[in-house]
């Protein structure tokens, strides 16, 4: 049963599972409580914060824990000061588009750049939200990120949910204002995420009640998943090292997909090693995903909305506006070191070879 949907959620890493098993007797308590159980839970939380901060080359004081990557994006984008304009990319994750839409509703002009297009000039007062790694194709937007960081007077928020554990991250070197990450993309459990904030960055909480996280995020934090997140972050150097092997697996999958007539999306420029986005003519992605699943291969398409219905991939549509079929047909095979080995890749290729030709015209 090869699982190739690591950009949606990775299997739980052994390190995260062990850390949560160790912590479960103490992590239930409210870390804001004064008493002993509260203090023990607080210690676990702060230890996790330290580990997350280290993974980013940051100080733990600048880490705001959230319930996940969507909340981290929402806080960074919606909690900042009112910008004169907002600039992002069409291929960004819905977690970015949602709070950007809220600025638009408040009358702030919004531009969504096509593909991996470069930034416009004069960004004074602007909010630039950079999806560092396209969640659908794995394309890396390094150049827009560097341009945004250099732009004078712009506030730069980075959605690094698909970059963490795939690319080395050093927030000091990036020169941006905020960076959002999530646990379940790197071997941790879902339900935990974090926002790194530059020390002098002003931020209004989006969850205002409670004053936790130094007044930046109200509500009792999910200590147990955050412990898992911390452990996953502590293991990130190993994960990054494993990316070479992951890339080799991806290249084998890609060769097999191309041999079956697949057209690879988002591979014109730099791309993370963990992702293959491919369109097979004659298949709608929403049919190919179940067909592969029924044979035991777990992949995904576009963006899975809450109903479970699959929408055509908006990111791929923005990359190839002249070829709409590619978005209709695009499926994402995403990999990671968790739970994969060469045999699983062999099996995945065999399933592709069995299923894809069923639609040959």
């Amino acid at each position, binding site marked *: 049963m090869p699982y190739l949907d690591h950009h949606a959620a990775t299997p739980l890493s052994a390190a995260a599972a062990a850390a949560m098993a160790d912590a479960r007797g103490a992590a239930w308590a409210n870390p804001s409580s004064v008493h002993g159980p509260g203090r023990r839970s607080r210690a676990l939380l702060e230890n996790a914060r330290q580990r997350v901060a280290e993974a980013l080359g940051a100080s733990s004081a600048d880490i705001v824990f959230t319930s996940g990557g969507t909340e981290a994006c929402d806080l960074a984008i919606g909690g900042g000061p009112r910008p004169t304009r907002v600039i992002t990319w069409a291929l960004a994750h819905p977690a970015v588009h949602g709070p950007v839409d809220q600025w638009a509703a408040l009358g702030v002009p919004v531009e969504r750049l096509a593909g991996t297009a470069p930034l416009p000039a004069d960004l004074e007062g602007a909010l630039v939200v950079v999806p560092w790694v396209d969640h659908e194709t794995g394309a890396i937007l390094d150049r827009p990120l560097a341009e945004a960081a250099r732009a004078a007077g712009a506030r730069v928020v980075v959605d690094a949910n698909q970059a963490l554990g795939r690319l080395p991250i050093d927030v000091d070197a990036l020169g941006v204002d905020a960076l959002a990450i999530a646990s379940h993309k790197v071997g941790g459990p879902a339900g935990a995420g974090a926002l790194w904030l530059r020390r002098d960055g002003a931020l209004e909480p989006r969850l205002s009640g409670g004053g936790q996280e130094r007044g930046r995020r109200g509500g009792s934090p999910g200590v147990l998943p955050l412990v898992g997140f911390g452990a996953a972050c502590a293991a990130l150097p190993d994960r990054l090292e494993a990316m070479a092997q992951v890339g080799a697996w991806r290249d084998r999958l890609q060769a097999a997909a191309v041999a079956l007539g697949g057209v690879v999306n988002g591979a014109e420029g730099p791309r993370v090693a963990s992702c293959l986005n491919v369109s097979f003519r004659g298949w709608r992605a929403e*049919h190919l995903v*179940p*067909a592969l*699943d*029924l044979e035991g291969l777990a992949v995904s398409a576009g963006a899975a909305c809450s109903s*479970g*219905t699959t929408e055509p991939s908006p990111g791929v549509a923005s990359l190839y506006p002249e070829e709409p079929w590619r978005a209709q047909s695009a499926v994402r095979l995403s990999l990671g070191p968790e739970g994969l080995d060469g045999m699983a890749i062999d099996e995945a290729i065999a399933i592709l070879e069995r299923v894809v030709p069923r639609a040959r015209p």
Partner: protein
Amino acid sequence: MSGGVDSSVAAALLHEAGHELVGVTLHLWDASGDQQVGRCCAPEDRDDARRTCDHLGIPHYVLDEREAFRRDVVEPFLDAYRGGETPIPCVECNRTVKLDHLVELAPRFGCDAVATGHYARIEPGEGGARLLRGHDRGKDQSYFLFGLRPETLAKMVFPLGALTKEQARAEGRRLGVPNADKGESQELCFVPDGDVAGFVARERGPGRPGAMVDESGESLGEHGGIEAFTIGQRKGLGLGGGGPTRYVLRIVPDQDQVVVGPADALQGSELCAERVRWIGPPPSEPFAGEVRIRYRHEPAAGQVEVTDGGFRVRFSQPQRAITPGQAAVIYRGDEVLGGGFIKS
């Protein structure tokens, strides 16, 4: 799987019989705002379908057919109402959006056949599969299925065809189907409140007012748009009390006219149908059959003759309210021979 009782029980029966199943729910329509709750195609219906599949331990997928549904079902439905007809969208929906599509998809999912919870039966015949009425005369849905291509029919399975609705519910309870006691779904899934005129107005703008006239053309009053009327309608004509009981006899779309008159003027002995489909080869000679002119209508005896654009039926006894847009489905006993849409 709609999330309703019928498709759930159909799945449970096939599962009990040892078949390997894949549950599919088609996402056809998003009801707007306050109409969403408890209606077909609402998110909770998809959840119900998923729950049934979880109960059976089979995979379940939701496929987005909203675009095809709007194009092939809703838009023609709106056109027909604006053209003075009373369309029956379920026929086209079953044919194109649902069953042709699923039968085409089945081999891609590694499946041999497509099953639904329709109350109808399929039997092998000499010239291919035959479509028969469901045993439950009150629920029989063969009327909606006349348009199926023979090659589609050959790949279909209707596990409820020999059951009554009550038997199906009982089977559902016996098999632990989670929603065995759920209520009946609406006649038109995308107009859950039944207000067709309101739906047409929301989609296409307000109706054009016109005259309500009697058979001699004399004006009896005004109406707010022809969409609100169907042949045989008595209520909601806005003619006030007192006078003789009147019924809608005809709708004249190019004059925005609704013609009303007494009940006996509703009787008709002949109809012409177009957009015809035959399940077997089209008959070359006129023949005697029984013809159903709406869902709640017992097939009536008549002489059927194939014409250039479709077929003509001459009924042995006059029929009430032969309504353009509805389907005329030809039976011989329990067997569906074919059908078409009433033109006049």
